[in-house]
């Protein structure tokens, strides 16, 4: 990480991101080549698009941000994040945050990933440690340092899109890591794509535009804002509508089904056979 930083510090933010990520990936060849390769491909295309279109990303500036908000954010940042990200977010033990945008901060802090507690394969989700307002302050402080993706507008994240289109896009772009029903899945070296149940629309959107940690970036050329809205719509549909077939068994597929039939199905039947053949006295 620190090596990456020294090499990449002088580059524009998005390029840096691209390099950081591609380094992290190409260094480790792995038997799970399909997943890794797909991810790599997506990272490259995502990153390259981001680099090419860096101007367009920050356009959706929703609220005018006052100097006061930014000042508050700066104070919070220096108290809570500077040890890792540096006093001016230029990077220290953690990566530089210049140009990651408000969306990235809102996602990382809003889902409780940041401030990071434990060094591990990937930052863990914890109960968020800041109020919504503080999160926004942090986000706009970081956004003021360099252009980056903004927190998405409400109409994009409220789940009012086309679920069928979203489902298809989700299967093509996300299911290889997150599982078709968003139940999560394993990546290499202890990293994993988390289950997407209970994640808010805003955070889903932000995850796509910022590509947290081991997830690729899906920028607006890659998946348009309307398509992102559709994906969110689909994920919300899956969350709000229980499976018509009964308990989902964690949507884990045939493994959970196999365990159920062996343990409960055959288990209860064996118990019955024991009862049937018990001596009747």
């Amino acid at each position, binding site marked *: 990480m620190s090596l990456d930083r020294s090499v990449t510090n002088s580059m524009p933010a998005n390029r840096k991101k691209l390099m950081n990520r591609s380094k992290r990936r190409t260094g480790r060849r792995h038997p799970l080549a399909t997943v890794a390769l797909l991810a790599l491909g997506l990272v490259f295309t995502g990153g390259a698009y981001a680099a090419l279109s860096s101007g367009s990303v920050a356009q959706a500036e929703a609220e005018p941000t006052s100097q006061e908000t930014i000042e508050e954010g700066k104070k919070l940042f220096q108290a809570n994040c500077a040890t890792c990200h540096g006093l001016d977010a230029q990077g220290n033990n953690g990566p530089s945050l210049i140009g990651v945008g408000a969306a990235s901060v809102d996602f990382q802090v809003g889902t409780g990933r940041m401030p990071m507690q434990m060094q591990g394969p990937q930052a863990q989700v914890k109960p968020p440690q800041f109020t919504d307002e503080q999160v926004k302050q942090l986000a706009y402080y970081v956004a003021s340092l360099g252009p980056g993706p903004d927190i998405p507008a409400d109409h994009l994240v409220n789940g009012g899109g086309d679920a069928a289109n979203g489902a298809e896009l989700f*299967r*093509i772009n996300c*299911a290889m890591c997150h599982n078709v029903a968003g139940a999560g899945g394993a990546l290499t070296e202890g990293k994993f794509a988390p289950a997407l149940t209970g994640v808010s629309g805003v955070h889903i959107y932000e995850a796509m535009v910022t590509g947290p940690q081991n997830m690729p970036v899906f920028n607006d050329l890659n998946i348009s804002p309307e398509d992102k809205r559709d994906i969110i719509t689909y994920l919300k549909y899956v969350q709000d509508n229980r499976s018509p077939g*009964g308990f989902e*068994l964690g949507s884990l*597929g*045939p493994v959970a089904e*196999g365990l159920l*039939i062996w343990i409960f199905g055959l288990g209860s039947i064996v118990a019955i056979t024991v009862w*049937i053949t018990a001596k009747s006295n």
Partner: protein
Amino acid sequence: MSTATTRSTAPEKRSFTAAASEYVNDRTGIAVAIKGLGRKAFPDHWSFLLGEVALFSFVVVLVSGTFLTFFFQASMAEVEYDGSYVPLKGVEMSVAMASTLDISFDIRGGLFVRQMHHWAALLFVAAIGLHMLRVFFTGAFRKPREINWVFGFLLFVLAMAEGFTGYSLPDDLLSGNGLRIIDGMVKGIPLIGTWTSFLLFGGEFPGTAIVGRLYTLHILLLPALVVALIAVHVGYVFIHKHTQFAGPGRQPTNSVGPPILPIYAAKAGGFMFIIWGVISLIAAMFTINPIWNYGPYDPSPVSAGTQPDWYIGFADGALRLIPPGWEFVWLDRTWSFNILVPLIAIGIFLVLVVGYPFIEAWVKGDKREHHIADRPRNAPIRTAIGAAGVTFYAGLWAAASSDLLATHFSLTMEGVINALQATVILGPIIAYFITKRVCIALQKKDREIVLHGYESGRIVKLPGGEFIEVHQPLDEYDRWRLVSFESYEPLMIRPDARGKITAGQRLRASVSRWFFEDRIAPVTRGELEAAHSSHHAEVDTTHG
């Protein structure tokens, strides 16, 4: 039974049932058959019912499957989905997929029957598996039942094939991924692979023919074979009679237990409804194969957590365990040892399973018939081999869920795979030795009990001040159970008629030594009497 008694009653007072049964009997002579069958005895150990669990779940599969055929359309023509599941509306998919969605959402009771079919299929194969283990560990495959072991094995393989073809029918993402793996495996076979794949799929994968072809296999050819083999298999069980555990009055020539009619038939009939009920309950409560999540098959997306049904898991696991880099180009061809090695390993494993009865009989030089089931501990080597086989299979099986093991126990993928590689290679050896030791220890304990009785927990102080524990002698029944088993000795090498010792004989003698070197002989009558005469006071002075 009732038919036999109705004949003697006055004709004018006959009930309707009696009249009806006589009508049938006069035209079919079925009473004789029923009487014959009805007097067959059925031994009453719970594990002897596992075969029936398989049989009855197959009945559920058959009935529910027939319902599905009314609505399922095995065509790969593209249509735009227009059913009631919103997140798929307007999506292009095959007719097979669309009709399965219709079964799930738009046909009354369809989803329930679909889930029943799939859950019953899983239970069917699971019951066969457990049934096979029972037969193995009690030595019920010995002469004259070796042939039936082979039929049973074929049923197991056919059931897996039935399951896999069924799993591939709905043409959803999971089906397609499964077929893609099969396609890859077929193509990995040198020389004929690619041709075979083209033949199978009617062109380049996935083509438009495969679902129709699998459908023919799934509802016509394979079920016909399964039904025929079940008939033969169960027929043989009637001819050979059931094996039974040793006990007083239980001879190799008889079979002790309640007669099939009326008690057993009633119990079995009830049992069928119980199984039906368990499957219905599961089908009503738990989702299985939610194809609406997976969406239509399309070669580009792959889902995390893509797994086959449990009974194909061991093959998937074998593929996952192969380390990277076992595929290389040589002589202008790609040699896919990452596929060939698992295929060969599984092939050898299956051949060993089906051939085991013959191997064991050869090693023992045993040509006698056996009708008394072994207690697993009394055949330590067989039990140990079985445990090794189970460990091997379980390792492969677990490997099919390596990704879920990693995420759910916060482990790394690599760690899980390496641990399972070790399990598959070293695990069987460790399991073998542990099981053998445990069996022999249990046999020793049995011997103690037969010779000296149970520890009663009652401590007595002798006049001399010594404390001893009173041992309670066994009753006749328990003793019978513990002493009646056969013990083999290693075969000696004997020259054949021409005074030669063949290599085959040498091999056999050494395998036989390995089998029977460590053994515990059953207690003999002499030993028993000797032990008893020293127990006059009903106290055991040898155990202070």
